[in-house]
C-alpha cells in the first residue's frame, strides 16, 4: 500500500495515468458514437507510425509546440503564467517572414539574421510583459492576452502592406530560398540529388514529401540547454528561487524584478523561435491572414501542463500532442470518425492532469492535519 502511495505521489505517474484515462475516455466516446474504437486507434497508430513520412511529419508538427511548451514551462519556473506565447510566436513569425522576403543575403547568413531577429523581437515582446509586471505590478495574464490580440492584428496589418502582399492571395510573399531551414532544400531538388534519392526510397519519401527541417534538432538542443540553464547555472537558480518564493528570494539578495523581466524575455525568445522556424522550415514559407489564433502558443500551454513544466517533459509531451493531432486526421479519413475525438482526448488528459495534481496536495493536507508537519 505504502509503495503504491509513493508511486502515486510521483508526478510522472500522475501524467501517465492522465494520458491513459484520456485514451480510455476516447475509447468510450468512440464506442458510444458507434465507431469501432479498436479500428480507430489502429488507424491513429497507423497514421503516426506506418510510414517514415508520417513519423517525419509528426516530428515537424511537434517542433513549434515543443518550443512554445518550453517557453511556457520556463516562465512557470519563475512563477509566471506565460499565456502570451501565442502572441510571441506570431511576432516571431512576422519578423521571420518580413526579413526572409525583403533581405537578400547568402544562405547561411540569411537564416542566421532572420532567426536572430525574430527571436529578439519576440524576446522584447515577452519582455514588455515582464517589465509591466515588475514595474507596475500588472498581472502577466492580462498583458499577455492583450498582446496576443495585438500580435494577431499586427500580422493582418503587415500582410496587407502593398509591398509585402502577394497579389490575389490573402498572404504575404514567400521568403527567399536563402532563408529556408529545410534540410538539404537545394540538393534534394537538384539533378544529382534526385538521382541519388531514387535509389533510396525511404529517404526520398521523407525529404521530398515532407518539410523536414532543422527545427526539431534545434528544439532538442534547446531542451538540453534550458534544462542545464535552469538547474545548473546561477541565473537558473535565481529564476527558480523567484518562482518558488519571491519573498525569500528578495530577502536573500536576489533582484526579483529583474528576474521577472529576464524570465519573460527568455520565454518570449523561445516562442518567437518557434514562429521563425515554422516560417523558414515549413511550406508555404510565408504568413497569411489570421482569422483566429492558430493555437501554436496555446497548445504550448497544454504541452507545458502535460510535461509538468519539465523541459525534457515538454519534448515528449510535444511529440505526443503532435502525434495525436496529426494521427487524428487519419481517424477521420479512414473510419469516418470525426477527428475532434482527438480534442476530446487531449482535453481529458489535461483534465486528469489538473485533477491528479490534487492528490499530492490532499495527501499533504491529511498529513498536516495529522500533526506530523504542524508548525
Amino acid at each position: 500500500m505504502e509503495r503504491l502511495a509513493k508511486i502515486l505521489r510521483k508526478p510522472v505517474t500522475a501524467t501517465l495515468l492522465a494520458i491513459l484515462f484520456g485514451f480510455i475516455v476516447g475509447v468510450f466516446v468512440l464506442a458510444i458514437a458507434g465507431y469501432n474504437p479498436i479500428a480507430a486507434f489502429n488507424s491513429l497508430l497507423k497514421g503516426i507510425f506506418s510510414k517514415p513520412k508520417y513519423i517525419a511529419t509528426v516530428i515537424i508538427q511537434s517542433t513549434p509546440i515543443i518550443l512554445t511548451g518550453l517557453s511556457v514551462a520556463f516562465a512557470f519556473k519563475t512563477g509566471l503564467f506565460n499565456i502570451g506565447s501565442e502572441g510571441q510566436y506570431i511576432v516571431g513569425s512576422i519578423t521571420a517572414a518580413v526579413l526572409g522576403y525583403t533581405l537578400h543575403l547568402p544562405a547561411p547568413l540569411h537564416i542566421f539574421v532572420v532567426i536572430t531577429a525574430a527571436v529578439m523581437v519576440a524576446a522584447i515582446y515577452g519582455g514588455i510583459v515582464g517589465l509591466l509586471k515588475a514595474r507596475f505590478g500588472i498581472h502577466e495574464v492580462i498583458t499577455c492576452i492583450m498582446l496576443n490580440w495585438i500580435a494577431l492584428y499586427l500580422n493582418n496589418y503587415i500582410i496587407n502592406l502593398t509591398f509585402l502582399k502577394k497579389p490575389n492571395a490573402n498572404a504575404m510573399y514567400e521568403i527567399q530560398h536563402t532563408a529556408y531551414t529545410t534540410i538539404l532544400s537545394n540538393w534534394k531538388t537538384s539533378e544529382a540529388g534526385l538521382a541519388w534519392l531514387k535509389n533510396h526510397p525511404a529517404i526520398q519519401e521523407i525529404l521530398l514529401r515532407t518539410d523536414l527541417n532543422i527545427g526539431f534538432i534545434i528544439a532538442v538542443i534547446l531542451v538540453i540547454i534550458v534544462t542545464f540553464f535552469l538547474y545548473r547555472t546561477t541565473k537558473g537558480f535565481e529564476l527558480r528561487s523567484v518562482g518558488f518564493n519571491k519573498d525569500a528570494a528578495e530577502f536573500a539578495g536576489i533582484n526579483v524584478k529583474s528576474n521577472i523581466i529576464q524570465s519573460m524575455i527568455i520565454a518570449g525568445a523561445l516562442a518567437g523561435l518557434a514562429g521563425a522556424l515554422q516560417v523558414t522550415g515549413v511550406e508555404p514559407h510565408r504568413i497569411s491572414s489570421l482569422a483566429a489564433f492558430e493555437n501554436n502558443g496555446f497548445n504550448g500551454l497544454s504541452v507545458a501542463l502535460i510535461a509538468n513544466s519539465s523541459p525534457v517533459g515538454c519534448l515528449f509531451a510535444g511529440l505526443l500532442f503532435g502525434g495525436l493531432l496529426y494521427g487524428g486526421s487519419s481517424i477521420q479519413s479512414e473510419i469516418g470518425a470525426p477527428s475532434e475525438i482527438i480534442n476530446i482526448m487531449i482535453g481529458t488528459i489535461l483534465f486528469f492532469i489538473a485533477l491528479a495534481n490534487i492528490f499530492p496536495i490532499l495527501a499533504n493536507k491529511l498529513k498536516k492535519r495529522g500533526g506530523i508537519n504542524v508548525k
Partner: protein
Amino acid sequence: MDISSEYAVQMRKITKTFDSFIALNAVHLDVKKGTIHAILGENGAGKSTLMNILYGFFRADSGEIYINGLKCEIKNTSAAIANGIGMVHQHFMLVDNFTVVENIILGNEVINAIGMIDLSKARKDIIELSKKYGLDVDPDKKIEDISVGMQQRVEILKALYRGAEILILDEPTAVLTPHEIDELVSIMQSLITDGKTIMIITHKLKEIIAASDICSIIRRGVYIDTVNVDEVSEEQLASMMVGHDVNLHIHKAPADPKEVIFEIKDLSVTDNRGLQKVNDFFLSVRKGEIVGIAGIDGNGQKELVEAITCLTKSKSGTITINGKEIQNTNPRDVIENKLCTIHEDRQRRGLILDFSVADNLIIENYHKKPFSKHGILKYKEIYAFAKENIKKFDIRPENCETSLVKSLSGGNQQKVIIAREITNDPDLLLAVQPTRGLDVGAIEYVHKALVNQRDEGKAVLLISFELDEIMDVSDTIAVLYDGKIVATFKQGEVDEKTIGLLMAGGGVGHGKVS
C-alpha cells in the same frame, strides 16, 4: 480511572495512524468538569490530533470517547457540537468581511416570522453572552477591522453561542500580546466558574502554569502523565514534554562588549500606508554583546527590520555597520556588509520550502566561489558544504542535503537558517523572533547559537515579542514603544514588571533613558 459523570471528557485507548506514521498510540485522557485542563506536548507530539479526534475532524482508528460519562460516537464536527464541544482553532475560521455578529451566527442563523435572518435578536443574544463572560467584542465591526485578540473572543463566543460546554482552545496565546493573554486567562476563569470545561493545547509552559489547573503530557503520540499544575515546576513539565532534562534559562558568561559596530541614528520609517511607524530611533550595538529589543507587536518592529534589511526605504536617518552607511541600499548589499538576518517569518522570507536543504544553505552565496564559477553551479562543492553544516548544526534528519526543506520540522528549518546566517560570519546577527513556533529543545538550541555568536566577539541584535526571551538572552535590553526606544537597561538592572510597563507605554520618561 473509571468512567464517571464527574468527567466532562474521557478518552480511552485512542489510536490514530496516518499511512505508517503512528500519531497517537492508545492515548487516554480524563478531563474533570469545571477545570482548565492543558494538553502539553512538543510540535508533532499528537496533541492537536487528539483534540481533532474529539472535535470530530478525524476519526480514531480505535478507542472510545465518553462525554459526561456517556459513550459517544463523534463522527463529525456537528456530532461534536451536538455533544456540547466547541473548538477555537489556532488559525481563526472567520469571514473577514462579515461583522462579528454575522460571523457568530453563521451556520446557526436565527430566523424570524417571515423567514429572514433575525439579526437584531442575534445581536442582543450575543451582547448578553459577551457581558456574561467578560468577552468584550464590538458586535457591528467587521472582522478585518478588529484586533487579533478580539477575533479570538469572537471565536470563543461562536462556540458558546452554539451551546458549547466543553471548549477546546488550540494554541490560544500564540497570536496574543501579554496584555491580551491576561485578559484571556480571566475570561477562562469566568467560564469555568460558570461550569464550563476548558481544554487548551499548548507547548508554552508559562501559560500552563498561569492558566490551568491540570496538565496532561503527550510525547510522540504516547500519553505520559497527568499532573496538578500547582505541584510541578516549569522545568519538570519541560522534561516530561521532551523526555530529557532541559535548561529553560540559558547559562552565559558576563558580556565583554567592545567597540560599537552597528549604529542607527535618528531613523524614521513609514509603513506602506504612509504612517510613521519608526521615528526618532537611536540604537547602538557593540561587538561582543547581545542587545534585545523588547516591545509589543505593532510598535514598529516590522518596519525597523525592513528598514535595516533594506526591504523598505527609510525616510530619514542613518544605519551604519562597520562605519558604512547601508540605509536604502538593497538586501544583497546589507548581507555583503556582514549584516545577516534570521527573519521572523521563516517560511515566507527565510526559506524556499520547495528547494533542497543544500540549495537553501547557499541562497545568499550561490553566485560566489566555491559554489559557482563563471555562472555555473558546482554541486559537488554545494553538497560538501551542506553535508558539513548539516553535521555541524545538527540539522535532522541526517544526510538531508537533497531533501526539500518543507519536509523538515520547524525546529530543523530554523537550524537551516541559523546555519546559513552564521556561516556567513556576520559582524551583526539580527535575530527577529528567532524562536517563534519552536519547541523547548529547539529554543534552547537557538539561544545557545546567539550566545556563541556573542562569545566569538560578534554583535547580536535580538528583536522579540517574548519578554522572557529578551530578559534571558540579552546583555542590554532596549524597550521599544511607538517606534521609539523609550529606555535601555543592562541585564539584571531591571525586572520584568518595569519593562512590561514601558512596553505598554506606561512610565515613559521614568525609566533610565539613555
